[in-house]
């Protein structure tokens, strides 16, 4: 499977549950380990940014 499809598979999982077992994917696709981690860090940061709006809004 190419990198794009692997990433889509992981993101599909991430969207359901942000605390996904990334190690499972890193072990399955060791050649992409760093790239996958980088992408997931960004994904988490983006999601966090959407939620952080609440800090100045919700009590």
């Amino acid at each position, binding site marked *: 499977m190419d990198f*794009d499809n692997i*990433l*889509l598979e992981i*993101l*599909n999982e991430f*969207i359901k549950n942000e605390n*996904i077992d*990334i*190690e499972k994917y890193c072990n399955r696709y060791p050649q992409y380990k760093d790239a996958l*981690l*980088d*992408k*997931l*860090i*960004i*994904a*988490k*940061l*983006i*999601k*966090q*940014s*959407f939620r*952080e*709006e*609440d*800090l*100045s*809004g*919700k*009590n």
Partner: protein
Amino acid sequence: MELDSQTKSLIVSAKLGNKEALNHLFARYQSRVLRVVRLRLTPDLRHKLGLQSMDILQEVFMYAFKHLKDFEPKSQGHFLNWLSKKVQHYIYDRLDYISREKRKAPQGKISIEQEFIPKGETSKMKIQLKDKGPTPYQIAVIKEKKEIIDSLLDLLEPEQKEIIINRDLEELTFKEIGKLYDKSEDAVRKQYTRAFKKLIELSEEKLKPLIAELTYKEYKDGF
């Protein structure tokens, strides 16, 4: 996502005319809704409207909340989607008003900040703004991230941008989004995943320096 019980009870009180409840609702949702509305405007309109002005924001929210009596929220997403659409409606009314006034006064004497009474309203309204929030440093970091991500959202296809707004900012479920666009839940989920992947790819370069600042390790350990 189901509407939380506190919001439900605030809405009920606000419908009964409780000002304190309105203030609470404003404090809870102003930041999120402002972001949604700004994202849906073109950059030109964003600049023109000067939506940073708290006065304008309070007017907009009062206008929206005045229509609460006609609304029964079914979920968190349903409420946020309704609220942002009401705010958007007010903004377009305001833009119409400004263009009309500008035509009447071609010398450019009309200001965006001047008092504005929306269609169907009789007076300008004010509500009290509560100042509860994060520290100045947190605000600066949040603002920087938000600005980067919002500018990147503008680079997505309009449909992709809208689905991310629906899902992540209005908190609609995939099923609810599907109903809006007459698509299946599964089709919407796939479309969202692709849009989110694109946003990640666009964000990578711009967010990396910020991640370094927030300690790269801390984020890696988070997985």
